[in-house]
């Protein structure tokens, strides 16, 4: 029974870790972006401050049922997905509910949150939110294709749909997927550009404009909750990539091993995270249809090659 207790503590640990790392990464990126744009920029822990401010605000107006739902769903899907992501390979303190076929489960479960946000944004009645949502959904259809091609390549190559299995295979063969099937990795990398919604694919959130994008009607606790959910998602995506393509992390259950594993995990994730950020720095914004065409161009071709590579 105390075994179950450990699991629960581990789950909480996982949530905390994901939350912290996600928020911190966000702060770091803000800082770096500012430096690149020759600004001074906020402090790295700025996101925490923002969250604190938002959560301490008193909510005056509510937009009704779906308005409440939106952050709830984001948190739910973030938490649930987190439960299925192997953080550290075979570490007792970071268990996960991985099961046969959880990869597909994750793909669909991640949508849960964004759908909730979309519905919440919809109910506010702000046309800009709805427009943002449609852009976001369309763009999602865009980058899902290379992403799924990449995943299918992996799944086909090893006839499994379980993240754990793929990690184990990498551990056994000793070669990371990004070398075993480079095309798949590239396709997934391109997809990640859209997934993180940095420029040139940031028309969805449109951070530059005031009061546009899905979240434009949300404030206070709602926005705070969404923000934390979003940062957890960032961590999730990064970890997923690392698990799938970079062999994951983790050596064992010991304290030292845990710390080392975390270190490696952070290293890998951060280096991966920098790719979309860098790309964003050097590229202007796409319109939505341009973005979709972009994703259906070379990335998809790479994905197809990857699948063929996987078959033979």
């Amino acid at each position, binding site marked *: 029974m105390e075994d179950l207790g450990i699991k629960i503590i581990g789950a909480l640990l996982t949530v905390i870790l994901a939350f912290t790392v996600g928020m911190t990464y966000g702060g770091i990126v803000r800082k770096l972006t500012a430096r690149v744009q020759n600004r001074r920029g906020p402090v790295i822990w700025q996101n925490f401050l923002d969250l604190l401010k938002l959560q301490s605000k*008193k*909510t005056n*107006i*509510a*937009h*009704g049922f779906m308005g*409440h739902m939106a*952050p709830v769903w984001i*948190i*739910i899907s973030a*938490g*649930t997905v987190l439960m299925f992501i192997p953080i550290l390979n075979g570490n007792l303190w970071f*268990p*996960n*509910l991985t*099961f046969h*076929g959880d990869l*597909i*489960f994750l793909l*669909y479960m991640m*949508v*849960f949150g964004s*759908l909730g946000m*979309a*519905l919440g944004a*919809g*109910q*506010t*009645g*702000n*046309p800009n939110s*709805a*427009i943002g949502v*449609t*852009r976001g*959904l*369309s763009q999602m*259809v865009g980058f*899902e*294709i290379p992403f*799924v*091609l990449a995943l*299918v390549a992996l*799944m*086909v190559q090893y006839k499994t*749909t379980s993240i754990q299995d793929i990690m184990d295979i990498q551990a056994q063969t000793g070669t990371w997927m990004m070398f075993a099937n480079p095309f798949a990795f590239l396709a997934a990398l391109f997809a990640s550009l859209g997934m993180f919604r940095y420029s040139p694919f940031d028309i969805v959130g449109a951070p530059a404009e*005031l*009061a*546009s994008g899905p979240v*434009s*009607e949300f404030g206070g*606790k*709602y926005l705070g*909750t969404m923000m934390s959910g979003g940062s957890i998602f960032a961590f999730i995506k990064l970890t997923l990539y690392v698990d799938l393509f970079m062999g994951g992390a983790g050596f064992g259950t010991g304290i030292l091993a845990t710390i080392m594993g975390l270190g490696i995990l952070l290293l890998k994730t951060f280096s991966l995270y920098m790719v979309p950020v860098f790309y964003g720095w050097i590229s202007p914004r796409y319109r*939505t*249809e341009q973005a*979709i*065409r972009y994703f*259906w161009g070379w990335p998809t071709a790479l994905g197809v090659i990857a699948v063929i590579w*996987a078959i033979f």
Partner: protein
Amino acid sequence: MNSFFLILLILFAGAGLSFVLGKISSIISGTVAFLSIAAASALFFTQIEMGSFIEFSLGGIQLQWGLNSYGYLFGIIVLGLGTLASLYSISYMQNKERTSGFYFNFVLVIAGMTGIIFANDFISFFIFWEIMTWASYLIIIYSGKNVKKIGIKYMIFSAIGAYSMLTAIVMIKGQYDTFLISDAINAGAFNFIDNIYIPILLLIGFGVKAATMPLHVWAPGAYNNAPTSFTVIFSGAMSKMGVLGMGLVLGHMFTADRSGSLTNFFSGFSVIYLQQTIGWLGGITAVIATLYALIQDDAKKLLAYSSIAQLGYITVGLATGTKLGVMAALFLAVVHGIFKGALFMVVGAVERQAGTTDMTKISGLIRKMPFTFLTALISIIALAGIPPLGGFVGKWMLYEALITESNSYFLVIVIFFSSTAAFLYSYRFLFGLFLGQEEKETEQVKEAPITMIIPMLVLAILLVITGAFPGLIFSPIATAMEFIGFKDVTWNMSVLNNVWGNEMNLTYLGITIGVVFVSIFAFITLKGLKGTRYVGTKDISTSGEIPYENENLTFQINFFQPFVRAAAPMYKRSMNKIWNELGNGLEALFNFTRKIYTGNGQTYALFVVIFLVLMLLFKDTLFV
């Protein structure tokens, strides 16, 4: 009296009775229809034991009615959905005209489908199939609008399907000298080696009802044109009759033992070829229907296209021919029956209360029709295949089957693309009807009457339950698959195993999500409630400034314009055009041939003489 006869008798009598009583009042005939269907389903679920059958002879043909596990699975859909839909349509059809005919045909369709489920021989199968078809035709043109285009198109395609089926049936009779389905199967009528035509003809016949490419063109118009309370049955249950047939044929085809045949390799190859063809047809159907669904402005039409897309998934699942795939297909069939029924009921409720289903005219109904919205929300989550509801389980098994058990990898991409694009129209549906700005026109809209709410909520609850306990459906499916040739099907494959040692099926997941859900929802709401006021949809901060009066804040038209721009090449060609051109060409040809009958009597006489002379010339070759 035998309960098979009794059930059908009740249904037919109910049809006739509701037709007669319809002259008095629409409510009465609706009630009669509902009662008859309810009584029939009560008998069906209580009185008939599995495997029992009766035999009798009609017109010198040996007929056999019975109930097997496979039919039982579809009986659940047909009669369950039928009961709810008939209850629903009492209020829906209340103020409409010519309701007597509607209820008559409604009950007839149910009776036809029940008969199809009972039929153990091809003849009664075909008879009930045709009854179902023409009754549904009469309902489709019930509203009287674009009868010519849609009604005739539906009837033509149904006739093509039915007659290819009839050809196959008589061929079976000619080759194996039996009309019994089981005998034909045992004789190997479906295993694609010694006879190619029979399975293909049958598949064409069923593919029409299952709206598979390229025979799907009737479906959108028909689904949209029928009264919504019937579209529930039409899309929810009637399309499943096609699935039933396809499952029967394909299941036996793929599980058939071809080791004995000499042309072993080629037959196996051809089977795989056929399998791939059907699978791709299903996949293309799914993609195209999805693409067309997300450019619709009419909620009902949107759902119509989405039904076709879902049927495409089911076809793909059947075409895999593996246990998991077929199981996924049947599961999707059941769940699709539930959620699509619920969604059409939602549309019907909106149509009745707000007067239209055009999403550019109405929006922001969420506060007016909360229960309807709740149903719509749950059903859409199921449709989009988002965990933890049933739709996901089906899709997940489908992917699992395609990736790990079959060899059609790019089919996975196609399916995935269409199901991702399905999010678009799912959101479009919810947003268009319930969210967004509240229009002035829809201010007086009230929630639908209770008799329409109850069926919707029942279906919604069913969706949640099937999501949490998929085993409830898997156990009948498992037994049903034994009937179509899959031996020892275990449905443990549906249970998700995790590292916590024991098997974790979606139940716990559902419960977990539910708990978290409730807690956080309570947290935010309670924190918010203190001094929180609920504001209307006009009260928004457009760039910080208050929108002035009658500023247009509605966003409904060209909803997915960017996506459509990007995907423009895919909208280029449509099957519909091809069929129309074919039809026009044939009509011109007919117009030409009938010119033979020139009104001149002498020409006719000349024909006679020429014919006589020709016959006399060739008499020795003709009549030896």
